[in-house]
Protein backbone atom coordinates (compact mmCIF):
# COMPACT_ATOMS: atom_id res chain seq x y z
CA UNK A 1 0.00 0.00 0.00
CA UNK A 2 2.80 2.32 0.94
CA UNK A 3 4.81 1.75 -2.20
CA UNK A 4 1.73 2.12 -4.34
CA UNK A 5 0.91 5.36 -2.56
CA UNK A 6 4.41 6.75 -3.05
CA UNK A 7 4.32 5.80 -6.72
CA UNK A 8 1.00 7.52 -7.28
CA UNK A 9 2.34 10.60 -5.50
CA UNK A 10 5.35 10.64 -7.82
CA UNK A 11 3.14 10.16 -10.86
CA UNK A 12 0.93 13.08 -9.81
CA UNK A 13 3.93 15.29 -9.09
CA UNK A 14 5.58 14.62 -12.43
CA UNK A 15 2.35 15.11 -14.34
CA UNK A 16 1.54 18.36 -12.59
CA UNK A 17 5.02 19.72 -13.18
CA UNK A 18 5.58 18.23 -16.60
CA UNK A 19 7.37 21.20 -18.16
CA UNK A 20 9.75 21.52 -15.25
CA UNK A 21 10.41 17.80 -15.15
CA UNK A 22 11.24 17.81 -18.85
CA UNK A 23 13.60 20.75 -18.44
CA UNK A 24 15.35 18.97 -15.59
CA UNK A 25 15.79 15.92 -17.80
CA UNK A 26 17.20 18.03 -20.63
CA UNK A 27 19.58 20.04 -18.49
CA UNK A 28 20.96 16.95 -16.77
CA UNK A 29 21.22 15.33 -20.18
CA UNK A 30 23.35 18.16 -21.57
CA UNK A 31 25.51 18.59 -18.48
CA UNK A 32 26.19 14.88 -18.13
CA UNK A 33 26.97 14.64 -21.84
CA UNK A 34 29.74 17.18 -21.30
CA UNK A 35 30.95 15.31 -18.23
CA UNK A 36 31.00 12.10 -20.26
CA UNK A 37 32.79 13.79 -23.16
CA UNK A 38 35.46 15.11 -20.80
CA UNK A 39 35.97 11.67 -19.30
CA UNK A 40 36.13 10.02 -22.74
CA UNK A 41 38.67 12.59 -23.95
CA UNK A 42 40.86 11.85 -20.97
CA UNK A 43 40.48 8.13 -21.62
CA UNK A 44 41.61 8.81 -25.19
CA UNK A 45 44.65 10.73 -23.93
CA UNK A 46 45.41 7.89 -21.53
CA UNK A 47 45.06 5.33 -24.31
CA UNK A 48 47.45 7.21 -26.53
CA UNK A 49 49.98 7.79 -23.79
CA UNK A 50 49.95 4.13 -22.84
CA UNK A 51 50.38 3.11 -26.39
CA UNK A 52 53.01 5.56 -27.50
CA UNK A 53 55.05 6.53 -24.47
CA UNK A 54 56.33 2.97 -24.21
CA UNK A 55 57.69 3.25 -27.71
CA UNK A 56 58.99 6.79 -27.78
CA UNK A 57 62.62 7.40 -27.06
CA UNK A 58 64.96 10.29 -26.66
CA UNK A 59 67.21 10.45 -29.71
CA UNK A 60 70.66 11.91 -29.26
CA UNK A 61 71.87 12.68 -32.74
CA UNK A 62 75.63 12.57 -32.98
CA UNK A 63 77.62 14.97 -35.09
CA UNK A 64 77.87 14.07 -38.74
CA UNK A 65 81.04 15.04 -40.69
CA UNK A 66 79.72 18.33 -42.07
CA UNK A 67 77.39 19.81 -39.46
CA UNK A 68 76.79 23.52 -39.08
CA UNK A 69 75.98 23.22 -35.36
CA UNK A 70 78.71 24.86 -33.19
CA UNK A 71 78.98 21.83 -30.90
CA UNK A 72 80.03 19.82 -33.91
CA UNK A 73 82.87 22.12 -34.94
CA UNK A 74 85.29 19.26 -34.27
CA UNK A 75 83.82 17.25 -37.12
CA UNK A 76 82.21 13.83 -36.90
CA UNK A 77 81.73 12.42 -33.44
CA UNK A 78 84.62 10.21 -32.46
CA UNK A 79 84.29 6.78 -30.96
CA UNK A 80 85.74 8.18 -27.74
CA UNK A 81 83.06 10.86 -27.54
CA UNK A 82 80.36 8.25 -28.11
CA UNK A 83 81.77 6.10 -25.32
CA UNK A 84 81.87 9.10 -23.00
CA UNK A 85 78.24 9.85 -23.75
CA UNK A 86 77.24 6.26 -23.06
CA UNK A 87 79.15 6.45 -19.77
CA UNK A 88 77.25 9.61 -18.81
CA UNK A 89 73.92 7.99 -19.59
CA UNK A 90 74.69 4.92 -17.50
CA UNK A 91 76.34 6.90 -14.68
CA UNK A 92 74.87 6.82 -11.19
CA UNK A 93 73.26 10.23 -11.54
CA UNK A 94 71.31 9.40 -14.70
CA UNK A 95 70.75 5.67 -14.44
CA UNK A 96 67.59 6.03 -12.31
CA UNK A 97 65.98 7.80 -15.24
CA UNK A 98 67.37 5.75 -18.07
CA UNK A 99 66.00 2.38 -18.88
CA UNK A 100 68.06 1.43 -21.88
CA UNK A 101 70.63 2.98 -24.19
CA UNK A 102 71.65 1.67 -27.52
CA UNK A 103 73.76 3.04 -30.32
CA UNK A 104 72.17 3.18 -33.71
CA UNK A 105 74.95 3.04 -36.26
CA UNK A 106 74.75 4.53 -39.71
CA UNK A 107 74.14 1.08 -41.15
CA UNK A 108 71.26 0.40 -38.78
CA UNK A 109 69.81 3.82 -39.48
CA UNK A 110 70.09 3.11 -43.19
CA UNK A 111 68.34 -0.21 -42.85
CA UNK A 112 65.51 1.30 -40.83
CA UNK A 113 65.28 4.08 -43.36
CA UNK A 114 65.13 1.75 -46.32
CA UNK A 115 62.60 -0.41 -44.60
CA UNK A 116 60.34 2.55 -44.17
CA UNK A 117 60.84 4.45 -47.38
CA UNK A 118 62.56 1.89 -49.60
CA UNK A 119 59.76 1.80 -52.08
CA UNK A 120 60.07 5.49 -52.82
CA UNK A 121 62.21 6.65 -55.74
CA UNK A 122 64.09 9.32 -53.89
CA UNK A 123 65.06 6.92 -51.15
CA UNK A 124 67.14 4.88 -53.60
CA UNK A 125 69.64 7.71 -53.93
CA UNK A 126 70.42 7.89 -50.20
CA UNK A 127 73.64 6.21 -49.19
CA UNK A 128 74.79 4.76 -45.89
CA UNK A 129 77.20 7.68 -45.37
CA UNK A 130 74.42 10.20 -45.50
CA UNK A 131 72.80 8.60 -42.49
CA UNK A 132 73.48 9.83 -38.97
CA UNK A 133 74.61 7.95 -35.90
CA UNK A 134 72.42 8.36 -32.84
CA UNK A 135 72.06 7.13 -29.32
CA UNK A 136 68.58 5.90 -28.60
CA UNK A 137 67.56 6.27 -24.97
CA UNK A 138 64.38 4.90 -23.55
CA UNK A 139 63.36 6.48 -20.28
CA UNK A 140 61.91 5.00 -17.13
CA UNK A 141 59.48 7.92 -16.92
CA UNK A 142 59.01 9.67 -20.27
CA UNK A 143 57.81 12.79 -18.46
CA UNK A 144 61.30 13.34 -17.03
CA UNK A 145 62.86 13.83 -20.41
CA UNK A 146 64.31 17.23 -19.50
CA UNK A 147 66.70 15.79 -16.89
CA UNK A 148 68.40 13.64 -19.47
CA UNK A 149 68.34 16.29 -22.17
CA UNK A 150 69.98 18.90 -19.91
CA UNK A 151 72.77 16.54 -18.98
CA UNK A 152 73.61 15.49 -22.54
CA UNK A 153 72.89 18.54 -24.68
CA UNK A 154 75.94 20.62 -25.55
CA UNK A 155 78.47 17.90 -24.90
CA UNK A 156 81.14 17.25 -27.51
CA UNK A 157 79.86 15.19 -30.39
CA UNK A 158 76.15 15.85 -29.73
CA UNK A 159 74.39 17.64 -32.54
CA UNK A 160 70.85 17.63 -31.23
CA UNK A 161 68.69 15.96 -28.59
CA UNK A 162 65.16 15.24 -29.67
CA UNK A 163 62.36 13.96 -27.51
CA UNK A 164 60.08 12.02 -29.79
CA UNK A 165 57.35 12.76 -27.33
CA UNK A 166 57.41 16.42 -28.36
CA UNK A 167 56.05 15.36 -31.72
CA UNK A 168 52.97 14.04 -29.94
CA UNK A 169 52.66 16.96 -27.54
CA UNK A 170 50.54 19.22 -29.78
CA UNK A 171 48.03 16.44 -30.17
CA UNK A 172 47.82 15.90 -26.44
CA UNK A 173 47.59 19.64 -25.96
CA UNK A 174 44.55 19.78 -28.21
CA UNK A 175 42.93 16.85 -26.45
CA UNK A 176 43.66 18.30 -23.01
CA UNK A 177 42.31 21.71 -23.98
CA UNK A 178 39.19 20.04 -25.30
CA UNK A 179 38.87 18.20 -21.98
CA UNK A 180 39.15 21.46 -20.05
CA UNK A 181 36.53 23.03 -22.29
CA UNK A 182 34.15 20.12 -21.90
CA UNK A 183 34.72 20.01 -18.14
CA UNK A 184 34.15 23.76 -17.88
CA UNK A 185 30.89 23.57 -19.79
CA UNK A 186 29.93 20.56 -17.70
CA UNK A 187 30.55 22.52 -14.50
CA UNK A 188 28.37 25.41 -15.66
CA UNK A 189 25.62 23.07 -16.80
CA UNK A 190 25.78 21.13 -13.54
CA UNK A 191 25.25 24.33 -11.58
CA UNK A 192 22.27 25.07 -13.82
CA UNK A 193 20.98 21.54 -13.29
CA UNK A 194 21.26 21.76 -9.50
CA UNK A 195 19.45 25.09 -9.43
CA UNK A 196 16.77 23.83 -11.74
CA UNK A 197 16.20 20.63 -9.78
CA UNK A 198 16.05 22.67 -6.58
CA UNK A 199 13.46 25.00 -8.07
CA UNK A 200 11.45 22.15 -9.50
CA UNK A 201 11.28 20.29 -6.23
CA UNK A 202 10.40 23.48 -4.41
CA UNK A 203 7.57 24.21 -6.84
CA UNK A 204 6.36 20.68 -6.58
CA UNK A 205 6.43 20.88 -2.78
CA UNK A 206 4.57 24.18 -2.78
CA UNK A 207 1.88 22.97 -5.13
CA UNK A 208 1.33 20.06 -2.78
CA UNK A 209 1.70 21.94 0.49
CA UNK A 210 -1.90 21.26 1.45
CA UNK A 211 -1.40 17.58 0.92
CA UNK A 212 1.85 17.47 2.86
CA UNK A 213 0.38 19.45 5.75
CA UNK A 214 -2.44 16.91 6.00
CA UNK A 215 -0.02 14.02 5.76
CA UNK A 216 1.99 15.54 8.58
CA UNK A 217 -1.16 15.98 10.63
CA UNK A 218 -2.13 12.34 10.40
CA UNK A 219 1.35 11.28 11.46
CA UNK A 220 3.31 10.63 8.28
CA UNK A 221 7.02 10.53 8.95
CA UNK A 222 9.31 13.13 7.48
CA UNK A 223 10.99 10.58 5.31
CA UNK A 224 7.68 9.42 3.93
CA UNK A 225 6.66 12.98 3.08
CA UNK A 226 9.97 13.78 1.44
CA UNK A 227 10.44 10.53 -0.42
CA UNK A 228 8.14 11.28 -3.39
CA UNK A 229 9.85 14.61 -3.99
CA UNK A 230 13.30 13.12 -3.78
CA UNK A 231 12.34 10.30 -6.11
CA UNK A 232 10.84 12.77 -8.58
CA UNK A 233 14.17 14.59 -8.75
CA UNK A 234 16.08 11.33 -8.91
CA UNK A 235 13.91 9.95 -11.72
CA UNK A 236 14.34 13.11 -13.79
CA UNK A 237 18.10 13.12 -13.21
CA UNK A 238 18.30 9.42 -13.97
CA UNK A 239 16.50 9.92 -17.27
CA UNK A 240 18.95 12.72 -18.08
CA UNK A 241 21.87 10.42 -17.33
CA UNK A 242 20.43 7.65 -19.49
CA UNK A 243 19.91 10.11 -22.36
CA UNK A 244 23.47 11.39 -21.95
CA UNK A 245 24.89 7.86 -22.03
CA UNK A 246 22.82 7.01 -25.08
CA UNK A 247 23.92 10.21 -26.78
CA UNK A 248 27.58 9.51 -26.09
CA UNK A 249 27.21 5.92 -27.23
CA UNK A 250 25.65 7.00 -30.51
CA UNK A 251 28.24 9.75 -30.93
CA UNK A 252 31.18 7.42 -30.36
CA UNK A 253 29.62 4.81 -32.61
CA UNK A 254 28.97 7.12 -35.54
CA UNK A 255 31.94 9.48 -35.31
CA UNK A 256 34.71 7.28 -33.97
CA UNK A 257 33.90 3.65 -34.66
CA UNK A 258 32.27 4.09 -38.05
CA UNK A 259 34.43 6.91 -39.33
CA UNK A 260 37.65 7.91 -37.53
CA UNK A 261 38.69 4.38 -36.62
CA UNK A 262 38.18 3.32 -40.24
CA UNK A 263 40.28 6.07 -41.75
CA UNK A 264 42.91 6.62 -39.06
CA UNK A 265 44.11 3.16 -38.18
CA UNK A 266 47.25 4.00 -36.21
CA UNK A 267 45.38 5.41 -33.24
CA UNK A 268 43.79 3.27 -30.57
CA UNK A 269 40.47 5.10 -30.24
CA UNK A 270 38.00 4.96 -27.40
CA UNK A 271 35.03 2.80 -28.30
CA UNK A 272 31.46 2.16 -27.26
CA UNK A 273 32.77 -0.22 -24.60
CA UNK A 274 34.41 2.75 -22.89
CA UNK A 275 31.08 4.60 -23.01
CA UNK A 276 29.52 1.71 -21.11
CA UNK A 277 32.25 2.17 -18.49
CA UNK A 278 31.48 5.88 -18.25
CA UNK A 279 27.67 5.44 -18.17
CA UNK A 280 27.41 4.23 -14.53
CA UNK A 281 29.53 7.19 -13.51
CA UNK A 282 27.09 9.55 -15.24
CA UNK A 283 24.13 7.85 -13.60
CA UNK A 284 25.83 8.14 -10.22
CA UNK A 285 26.58 11.82 -10.76
CA UNK A 286 22.97 12.43 -11.84
CA UNK A 287 21.60 10.77 -8.73
CA UNK A 288 24.04 12.59 -6.45
CA UNK A 289 23.01 15.90 -8.07
CA UNK A 290 19.35 15.15 -7.47
CA UNK A 291 20.00 14.02 -3.90
CA UNK A 292 21.94 17.16 -3.03
CA UNK A 293 19.32 19.40 -4.62
CA UNK A 294 16.45 17.70 -2.82
CA UNK A 295 18.21 17.87 0.53
CA UNK A 296 18.75 21.58 0.04
CA UNK A 297 15.20 22.37 -1.06
CA UNK A 298 13.27 19.94 1.12
CA UNK A 299 14.81 20.70 4.49
CA UNK A 300 12.78 23.90 4.44
CA UNK A 301 9.43 22.32 3.61
CA UNK A 302 9.35 19.47 6.00
CA UNK A 303 9.51 20.99 9.45
CA UNK A 304 7.47 18.77 11.70
Amino acid at each position, binding site marked *: *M*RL*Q*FVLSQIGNGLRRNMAMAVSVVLVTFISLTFVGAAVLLQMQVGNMKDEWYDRVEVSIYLCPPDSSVPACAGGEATEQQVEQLQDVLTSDSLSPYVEEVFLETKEQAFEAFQERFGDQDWAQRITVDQMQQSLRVSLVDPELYQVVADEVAGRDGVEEVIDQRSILEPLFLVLNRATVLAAGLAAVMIVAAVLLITTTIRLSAMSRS*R*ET*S*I*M*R*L*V*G*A*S*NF*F*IQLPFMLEGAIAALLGAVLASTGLWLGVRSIIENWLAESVRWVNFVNTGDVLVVAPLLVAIGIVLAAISSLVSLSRYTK*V
Partner: protein
Amino acid sequence: MIRFKKVSKVYARGARPALDQVSLEVGRGEFVFLVGASGSGKSTFLRLVLREERPTHGSVFVAGRDLANLSQWKVPQLRRQIGCVFQDFRLLHNKNVFDNVAIALQVIGKPRHHVMTTVPETLEMVGLAGKEKRLPHELSGGEQQRVAIARAFVNRPAIILADEPTGNLDPTTSVGIMRLLDRINRTGTTVVMATHDDEIVDQMRKRVVELVDGQMVRDQDRGVYGAAR
Protein backbone atom coordinates in the same frame (compact mmCIF):
# COMPACT_ATOMS: atom_id res chain seq x y z
CA MET B 1 -4.58 11.59 28.65
CA ILE B 2 -3.57 15.25 28.34
CA ARG B 3 -1.87 17.06 31.19
CA PHE B 4 -0.67 20.66 31.18
CA LYS B 5 1.59 21.70 34.04
CA LYS B 6 1.93 25.47 34.42
CA VAL B 7 2.20 25.89 30.68
CA SER B 8 2.98 29.29 29.22
CA LYS B 9 3.48 30.12 25.59
CA VAL B 10 4.93 33.41 24.44
CA TYR B 11 5.14 33.79 20.66
CA ALA B 12 7.03 37.08 20.40
CA ARG B 13 9.36 38.39 23.06
CA GLY B 14 7.61 41.00 25.20
CA ALA B 15 4.18 40.20 23.83
CA ARG B 16 1.31 39.09 26.03
CA PRO B 17 1.52 35.32 26.50
CA ALA B 18 -0.90 33.31 24.38
CA LEU B 19 -1.18 30.88 27.25
CA ASP B 20 -0.36 31.90 30.80
CA GLN B 21 0.38 29.33 33.52
CA VAL B 22 -2.28 26.91 32.41
CA SER B 23 -2.58 23.70 34.40
CA LEU B 24 -5.17 21.20 33.30
CA GLU B 25 -5.76 17.50 33.21
CA VAL B 26 -8.01 15.72 30.75
CA GLY B 27 -8.66 12.09 31.59
CA ARG B 28 -9.09 9.16 29.24
CA GLY B 29 -12.46 9.15 27.54
CA GLU B 30 -13.40 12.66 28.66
CA PHE B 31 -15.22 15.21 26.51
CA VAL B 32 -13.99 18.76 27.09
CA PHE B 33 -15.17 22.00 25.58
CA LEU B 34 -12.51 24.66 25.31
CA VAL B 35 -14.30 27.99 25.14
CA GLY B 36 -13.19 31.58 24.94
CA ALA B 37 -13.04 34.52 22.58
CA SER B 38 -10.77 34.58 19.55
CA GLY B 39 -7.18 35.02 20.68
CA SER B 40 -7.87 33.57 24.10
CA GLY B 41 -5.40 30.73 23.51
CA LYS B 42 -7.63 27.85 22.40
CA SER B 43 -5.72 27.18 19.21
CA THR B 44 -2.40 27.49 20.98
CA PHE B 45 -3.61 24.88 23.44
CA LEU B 46 -4.40 22.47 20.59
CA ARG B 47 -1.11 23.20 18.82
CA LEU B 48 0.80 22.43 21.99
CA VAL B 49 -0.92 19.06 22.29
CA LEU B 50 0.03 18.29 18.66
CA ARG B 51 3.52 19.55 19.35
CA GLU B 52 3.27 21.99 16.49
CA GLU B 53 4.48 24.42 19.12
CA ARG B 54 6.58 23.92 22.19
CA PRO B 55 5.76 25.65 25.48
CA THR B 56 7.89 28.55 26.64
CA HIS B 57 7.51 27.34 30.21
CA GLY B 58 5.96 24.35 31.87
CA SER B 59 5.42 20.86 30.55
CA VAL B 60 2.87 19.11 28.40
CA PHE B 61 2.13 15.40 28.72
CA VAL B 62 0.11 13.60 26.08
CA ALA B 63 -0.74 9.90 26.27
CA GLY B 64 1.82 9.46 29.01
CA ARG B 65 4.63 11.16 27.14
CA ASP B 66 6.43 14.30 28.17
CA LEU B 67 6.48 16.25 24.93
CA ALA B 68 9.59 18.14 26.00
CA ASN B 69 11.56 14.90 25.88
CA LEU B 70 10.01 13.71 22.64
CA SER B 71 12.60 13.66 19.90
CA GLN B 72 11.72 15.20 16.58
CA TRP B 73 11.48 11.93 14.71
CA LYS B 74 8.99 10.53 17.22
CA VAL B 75 6.54 13.38 16.67
CA PRO B 76 4.75 11.50 13.85
CA GLN B 77 4.20 8.60 16.29
CA LEU B 78 2.51 11.03 18.66
CA ARG B 79 0.28 12.44 15.93
CA ARG B 80 -0.90 8.99 14.98
CA GLN B 81 -2.60 8.88 18.37
CA ILE B 82 -4.35 12.19 17.79
CA GLY B 83 -7.05 12.91 15.24
CA CYS B 84 -7.64 16.48 14.14
CA VAL B 85 -10.78 18.19 12.87
CA PHE B 86 -10.84 21.80 11.71
CA GLN B 87 -13.34 24.49 10.97
CA ASP B 88 -12.30 24.53 7.29
CA PHE B 89 -12.38 20.70 6.92
CA ARG B 90 -8.95 20.56 5.17
CA LEU B 91 -9.88 17.94 2.63
CA LEU B 92 -7.98 17.24 -0.56
CA HIS B 93 -10.14 18.60 -3.35
CA ASN B 94 -8.81 16.33 -6.07
CA LYS B 95 -9.34 13.13 -4.11
CA ASN B 96 -12.67 11.43 -3.53
CA VAL B 97 -14.15 10.72 -0.14
CA PHE B 98 -12.62 7.27 0.14
CA ASP B 99 -9.13 8.47 -0.73
CA ASN B 100 -9.40 11.44 1.60
CA VAL B 101 -10.00 9.07 4.49
CA ALA B 102 -7.64 6.37 3.27
CA ILE B 103 -4.68 8.74 3.12
CA ALA B 104 -4.53 8.76 6.92
CA LEU B 105 -3.89 5.01 6.86
CA GLN B 106 -1.76 4.91 3.74
CA VAL B 107 0.84 7.38 4.96
CA ILE B 108 1.43 5.42 8.13
CA GLY B 109 1.96 2.23 6.18
CA LYS B 110 -1.19 0.25 6.94
CA PRO B 111 -1.62 -2.77 4.68
CA ARG B 112 -4.04 -2.59 1.80
CA HIS B 113 -6.61 -5.01 3.17
CA HIS B 114 -6.75 -3.04 6.40
CA VAL B 115 -7.45 0.15 4.44
CA MET B 116 -10.06 -1.57 2.31
CA THR B 117 -12.05 -2.73 5.32
CA THR B 118 -11.52 0.08 7.84
CA VAL B 119 -12.30 3.03 5.56
CA PRO B 120 -15.82 1.86 4.53
CA GLU B 121 -16.54 0.96 8.16
CA THR B 122 -15.60 4.41 9.33
CA LEU B 123 -17.51 6.09 6.51
CA GLU B 124 -20.57 4.13 7.46
CA MET B 125 -20.15 5.16 11.06
CA VAL B 126 -20.07 8.87 10.16
CA GLY B 127 -23.09 8.39 7.93
CA LEU B 128 -21.45 8.63 4.51
CA ALA B 129 -21.97 5.09 3.29
CA GLY B 130 -22.40 5.04 -0.46
CA LYS B 131 -20.66 8.37 -1.02
CA GLU B 132 -17.14 6.95 -1.32
CA LYS B 133 -16.67 8.11 -4.89
CA ARG B 134 -17.84 11.69 -4.40
CA LEU B 135 -15.43 14.58 -4.55
CA PRO B 136 -15.45 17.07 -1.65
CA HIS B 137 -17.08 19.85 -3.68
CA GLU B 138 -20.00 17.55 -4.43
CA LEU B 139 -20.80 17.30 -0.73
CA SER B 140 -22.54 19.66 1.66
CA GLY B 141 -20.55 21.37 4.40
CA GLY B 142 -21.80 18.96 7.00
CA GLU B 143 -20.87 15.99 4.85
CA GLN B 144 -17.41 17.41 4.25
CA GLN B 145 -16.93 17.76 7.96
CA ARG B 146 -18.01 14.14 8.38
CA VAL B 147 -15.31 13.14 5.91
CA ALA B 148 -12.81 15.11 7.96
CA ILE B 149 -13.99 13.40 11.14
CA ALA B 150 -13.76 10.02 9.43
CA ARG B 151 -10.19 10.83 8.44
CA ALA B 152 -9.37 11.86 12.01
CA PHE B 153 -10.96 8.75 13.50
CA VAL B 154 -10.12 6.08 10.94
CA ASN B 155 -6.90 5.23 12.71
CA ARG B 156 -8.80 4.89 16.04
CA PRO B 157 -6.73 7.55 17.84
CA ALA B 158 -6.82 7.97 21.60
CA ILE B 159 -7.56 11.66 21.28
CA ILE B 160 -9.63 13.78 18.91
CA LEU B 161 -8.85 17.48 18.79
CA ALA B 162 -11.53 19.58 17.14
CA ASP B 163 -10.93 23.25 16.42
CA GLU B 164 -14.34 24.88 15.95
CA PRO B 165 -15.68 21.97 13.91
CA THR B 166 -19.13 23.57 13.66
CA GLY B 167 -17.86 27.06 12.91
CA ASN B 168 -18.86 26.90 9.23
CA LEU B 169 -22.07 24.96 9.65
CA ASP B 170 -25.69 25.84 10.26
CA PRO B 171 -27.22 24.91 13.64
CA THR B 172 -29.06 21.79 12.45
CA THR B 173 -25.99 20.40 10.74
CA SER B 174 -23.92 21.30 13.78
CA VAL B 175 -26.13 19.18 15.98
CA GLY B 176 -25.48 16.23 13.68
CA ILE B 177 -21.75 16.76 13.90
CA MET B 178 -21.94 17.00 17.69
CA ARG B 179 -23.87 13.74 17.88
CA LEU B 180 -21.14 12.16 15.84
CA LEU B 181 -18.39 13.50 18.09
CA ASP B 182 -20.38 12.32 21.08
CA ARG B 183 -20.61 8.83 19.61
CA ILE B 184 -16.90 8.81 19.02
CA ASN B 185 -16.40 9.94 22.60
CA ARG B 186 -18.50 7.01 23.80
CA THR B 187 -16.07 4.59 22.18
CA GLY B 188 -13.57 5.75 24.78
CA THR B 189 -11.88 8.41 22.71
CA THR B 190 -10.89 11.59 24.49
CA VAL B 191 -12.36 14.60 22.70
CA VAL B 192 -11.17 18.16 23.15
CA MET B 193 -13.22 20.67 21.22
CA ALA B 194 -12.52 24.36 20.93
CA THR B 195 -15.67 26.29 20.11
CA HIS B 196 -17.57 29.57 20.09
CA ASP B 197 -20.92 27.89 19.78
CA ASP B 198 -22.78 28.59 23.03
CA GLU B 199 -25.92 26.66 22.02
CA ILE B 200 -24.01 23.49 21.52
CA VAL B 201 -22.04 23.82 24.73
CA ASP B 202 -25.21 24.49 26.67
CA GLN B 203 -26.99 21.53 25.09
CA MET B 204 -24.25 18.97 25.59
CA ARG B 205 -23.57 19.64 29.25
CA LYS B 206 -20.00 18.46 29.21
CA ARG B 207 -16.94 19.68 31.00
CA VAL B 208 -16.17 23.29 30.03
CA VAL B 209 -12.77 24.95 30.26
CA GLU B 210 -12.77 28.67 29.61
CA LEU B 211 -9.76 30.68 28.58
CA VAL B 212 -9.57 34.46 28.74
CA ASP B 213 -6.45 36.16 27.42
CA GLY B 214 -4.46 32.99 27.84
CA GLN B 215 -5.51 32.36 31.41
CA MET B 216 -7.77 29.56 32.53
CA VAL B 217 -10.67 31.22 34.31
CA ARG B 218 -13.07 28.30 34.63
CA ASP B 219 -13.07 24.51 34.70
CA GLN B 220 -16.57 23.29 35.23
CA ASP B 221 -18.12 19.84 34.99
CA ARG B 222 -21.39 19.70 33.06
CA GLY B 223 -20.95 23.40 32.39
CA VAL B 224 -22.54 25.93 30.06
CA TYR B 225 -20.99 28.47 27.74
CA GLY B 226 -21.51 31.73 29.56
CA ALA B 227 -21.46 30.79 33.24
CA ALA B 228 -18.61 33.13 34.11
CA ARG B 229 -20.36 36.19 32.79
